[in-house]
């Protein structure tokens, strides 16, 4: 029976090729989208899942309640790990230093920049054991590898990159031209799904004050890039471990505000998903809301595809009614027919699943490129996935198939044999309309969201920056050496093509500065305020074309007299309690940098902040040559290429040992929206897919309408109807449905986008034209989809149509 039914189903699907094609196309694209979304979600969810007993592994993080905000940080003072280890035997703690920008040189080869170098102590592999990676160690001894200074462990990948086919063990690597480390071990390449990516591990004891620009690792209160991870021994409770941290904090904190701070433990499995620590995570962070949104998106897309199937099948049911009548008169029961048509749906969804798998495999490299990830198909090879996929296919089959199968198996045999079912019933027409409205509501909703997101991205990129970003490059200086800085300046002094040259810590981006404490008579004394200080020279203003709201820039005398004058941004004056920036001029503030007490001489417009979500922080600009690590250079228009070449050659003369790094500020800014841009691309792609699937369904539905109305069209034409009149007649119903969908989608999308925008400190507004545009867009696409068939029907010869009827 089953074989016979299958055989008949396949023949019937084959016979009605265009019907089958439309159904397969919609479903397979939908399934491919869901599969890709599954793989993305699986990839994100598999972060840090490869350590043994990972529920006992935590990262130490801190929370500081300030007057103006709560500051969360994942970096903690460097002695934290050592104190924990020495004083609390139930806790295994490892201290690391994450270097995101380290110059690496192998022998006499040209140096290059390595972005992820981790300095780790010998307990590193006890805490983060990578137990899920088989045969982790390709060479070296795990027990001793990080014990002594100047030892390094490479990953397979970096070993190959540095040394090619040679055996790297025993070879030397120079770091920042300051220290040589010896390769003592090789690790198999690690999964990319780690929140702590590294290409090289260096023993923590290698870190000296030279490598850290003179900073002392043993002082409390200095965090920079220090992270502490702990593994609690069995039986040790979270509360007792956090109690230990609290004690360490209280004992070491010196400042009043610091004592209010709190160290606590963050489960390692949360790190990748907790946006609280987004800014201090070494790798990117994904919000679980983002993942939920993706999954919802996938759900909607597959639902739209299922609805296509339902609509197509119920429209088509009337063509099949005679067959149902025959089957019933030869003894088929309702149940048998129901089973038959459910099986037909199963065959379609199964084929669609296979096609969808193929499509997903084709799409994955593109998705990886868009997202800059390395998502693999490996997860689908597991038994759990297989079971899940079977369940998923059954659910889809059920959603798509039940209603059409009920309709078909419920046909009255006599009526269907007499072709009295040619017109579908009222309720099923209503249902079909409701389903089409649902589809378009979803798609229009997605279009609206896409437009709002696009607007927000655009808003951000074009927002007033407080400076001019065109034609400015930033060149990094590897050392803070005043002799070299002067040498560099004199080489570029008379260079044509350079408008201005400024030495500074970095570009005017508010989170580019040194975080320091801020005190002022206007502020309450024992709550901590903070400001971001950007050390810069006098030329900074012209190099970045800073706009001043009030006051003036530093005078040459003030530049000589360090700590005497400061230019602040509008936010800082607001923090001080002034509504008019001019009121702040002449006031004195105290900054936690050399305990300087400069006078405010000028106020700038608020700078851009690199994170879309953050409020703009208080920023203070002041001359402070000890932190000049970059040169901001404004180029004059025209022939920039040769100017850039001379800048590079001057730089290489001054810093022959180092890696030249240069970037246009526009590019740097664009990079800071990279994550959002990628997400936006993904969203755009899924919206396009959903509207495409809707249109496939519309195409199918209009085909049935045209067939059913062939005779009516003929009669109307004979009576003198015009082609456009007939096109309108055929399209009107659908256009009305899209109108309804727009009305439903608009408030829902508005609600969600309003919520989404609320997360941003600076946001665009949702104007009415976005809804109008989305509606227009949907109508246009729908019209294009249906016009081919309606116009063809309207142009057909009426006499011929009437005769064949």
């Amino acid at each position, binding site marked *: 029976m089953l074989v*016979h039914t299958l055989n*008949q189903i396949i023949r*019937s699907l084959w016979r009605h090729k265009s019907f089958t094609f439309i159904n397969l196309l919609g479903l397979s694209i939908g399934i491919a989208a869901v599969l890709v979304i599954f793989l993305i979600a699986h990839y994100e969810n598999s972060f840090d899942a490869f350590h043994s007993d990972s529920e006992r592994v935590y990262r130490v993080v801190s929370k500081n309640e300030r007057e103006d905000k709560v500051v969360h940080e994942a970096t903690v003072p460097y002695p934290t790990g050592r104190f924990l280890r020495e004083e609390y035997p139930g806790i295994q703690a490892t201290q690391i230093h994450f270097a995101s920008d380290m110059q690496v040189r192998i022998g006499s080869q040209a140096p290059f920049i390595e972005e992820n170098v981790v300095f780790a102590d010998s307990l590193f592999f006890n805490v983060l054991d990578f137990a899920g990676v088989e045969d982790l160690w390709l060479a070296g001894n795990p027990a001793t590898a990080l014990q002594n200074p100047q030892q390094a462990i490479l990953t397979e990948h970096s070993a190959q990159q540095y040394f090619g086919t040679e055996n790297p063990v025993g070879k030397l690597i120079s770091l920042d031209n300051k220290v040589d480390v010896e390769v003592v071990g090789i690790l198999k390449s690690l999964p990319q799904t780690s929140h702590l990516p590294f290409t090289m591990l260096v023993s923590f004891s290698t870190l000296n004050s030279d490598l850290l620009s003179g900073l002392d690792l043993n002082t409390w209160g200095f965090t920079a890039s220090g992270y502490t991870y702990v593994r609690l021994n069995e039986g040790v409770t979270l509360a007792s471990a956090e109690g230990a941290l609290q004690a360490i904090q209280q004992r070491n904190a010196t400042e009043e505000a610091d004592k209010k701070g709190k160290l606590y433990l963050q489960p390692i499995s949360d790190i990748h998903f907790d946006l609280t620590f987004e800014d201090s995570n070494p790798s990117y962070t994904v919000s679980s809301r983002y993942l939920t949104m993706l999954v919802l998106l996938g759900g909607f897309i597959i639902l739209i595809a299922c609805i296509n199937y339902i609509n197509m099948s119920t429209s088509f049911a009337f063509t099949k009614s005679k*067959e149902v*009548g025959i089957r019933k008169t030869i003894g088929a*029961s309702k149940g048998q027919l129901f089973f038959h048509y459910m099986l037909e749906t199963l065959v379609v969804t199964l084929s669609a699943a296979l096609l969808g798998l193929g499509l997903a495999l084709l799409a994955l490299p593109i998705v990886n490129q868009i997202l800059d990830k390395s998502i693999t198909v490996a997860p689908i090879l597991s038994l759990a996935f297989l079971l899940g996929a079977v369940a998923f296919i059954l659910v889809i089959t059920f959603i798509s198939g039940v209603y059409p199968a009920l309709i078909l198996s419920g046909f009255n045999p006599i009526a269907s044999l007499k072709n009295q079912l040619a017109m579908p019933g009222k309720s099923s027409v209503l249902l079909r309309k409701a389903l089409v409205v649902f589809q378009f509501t979803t798609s229009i909703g997605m279009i609206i969201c896409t437009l709002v997101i696009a607007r927000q991205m655009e808003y951000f990129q074009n927002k007033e920056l407080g400076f001019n970003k065109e034609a400015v490059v930033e060149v990094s200086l590897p050392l803070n050496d005043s002799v070299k800085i002067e040498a560099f300046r004199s080489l570029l002094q008379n260079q044509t093509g350079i408008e201005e040259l400024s030495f500074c810590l970095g570009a005017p981006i508010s989170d580019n500065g040194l975080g320091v404490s801020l005190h002022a008579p206007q502020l309450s004394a024992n709550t901590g305020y903070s400001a971001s200080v950007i050390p810069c020279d006098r030329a900074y203003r012209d190099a970045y074309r800073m706009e001043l709201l009030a006051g003036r820039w530093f005078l040459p005398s003030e530049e000589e007299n360090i700590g005497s004058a400061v230019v602040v941004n509008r936010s800082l004056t607001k923090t001080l309690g002034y509504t008019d920036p001019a009121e702040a001029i002449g006031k004195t503030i105290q900054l936690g940098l050399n305990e300087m007490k400069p006078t405010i001489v000028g106020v700038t417009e608020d700078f851009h902040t690199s994170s879309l979500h953050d409020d703009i922080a208080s920023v203070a600009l002041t001359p402070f040559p000890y932190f000049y690590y970059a040169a901001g250079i404004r180029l004059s228009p025209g022939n920039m290429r040769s100017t850039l070449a001379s800048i590079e050659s001057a730089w290489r003369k001054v810093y022959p040992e180092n890696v030249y790094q240069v970037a246009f500020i526009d590019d740097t800014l664009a990079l800071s929206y990279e994550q959002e841009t990628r997400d936006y691309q993904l969203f755009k792609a899924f919206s396009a897919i959903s509207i495409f699937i809707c249109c496939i369904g519309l195409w199918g539905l209009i085909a049935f309408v045209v067939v059913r109305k062939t005779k009516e069209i003929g009669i109307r034409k004979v009576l003198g109807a015009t082609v456009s009149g007939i096109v309108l007649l055929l399209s009107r119903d659908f256009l009305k449905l899209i109108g309804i969908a727009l009305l439903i989608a608009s408030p829902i999308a508005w609600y969600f986008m309003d919520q989404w925008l609320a997360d941003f400190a600076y946001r665009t507004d949702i104007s009415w034209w976005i809804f109008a545009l989305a509606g227009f867009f949907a109508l246009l696409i729908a019209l294009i989809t249906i016009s081919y068939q309606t116009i063809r029907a309207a142009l057909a010869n009426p006499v011929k149509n009437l005769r064949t009827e």
Partner: protein
Amino acid sequence: MIKLNGIYKWYQSGINRNFVLKDINLNIEEGAFISLMGPSGSGKSTLLNIIGMLDEPSEGEYLFLDQSVFAMKERQRKELYKQYIGFVFQSYHLIDELTVYENIEAPLLYQGVKSSERRSMVADMLDRFSIVGKKDLFPNQLSGGQQQLVGIVRALIAKPKLILADEPTGNLNSAQGDEIMQLFQQLNREDGVTILQATHSEKNAAYGHRTIHLLDGQIQHQHVPL
């Protein structure tokens, strides 16, 4: 075998009842061969559909082998139908996607007959009606007469005790019609199959033992040929 008592069938149109069948009382014994005649619209098909359990009367009692058909559960009725009744239509109503063989086999599938048994039953029928050579053809590759023959073979495959034929020769020429009628006669005589056929042709009606004349939904008279 069949007993109809006071069968009425009407369609409601507005407040009016349009009667299609009015007070039909009928007795059909096992082994009978009955022809049903009457002008178009007189209710022949409706009556056949009711007897064939494809339609329900608006009023009245229907006994099949002494069991009241419309008091039964749907499932029981379906069983009865599968076991005893074969339908033949004017427009042959074969399933386009299935070959001759598969069309004939289809009712057995729905009855859950085992595969080996099915094969021999279909082979028997193909043999008996000399259509073995056509078994792999699709309906659209057959002539009208051949299609009707397949339709009849399909109705016979499950060895029904009652064949209901609604103008079985309506779409056939007279030679083809005669063949079908002879086949019915043979089935009736040799296998004892009860046959009830609706027809417009006096000649075909004469193959039966008895002719029932319907007019406006009422039995006008019954006529037994000499």
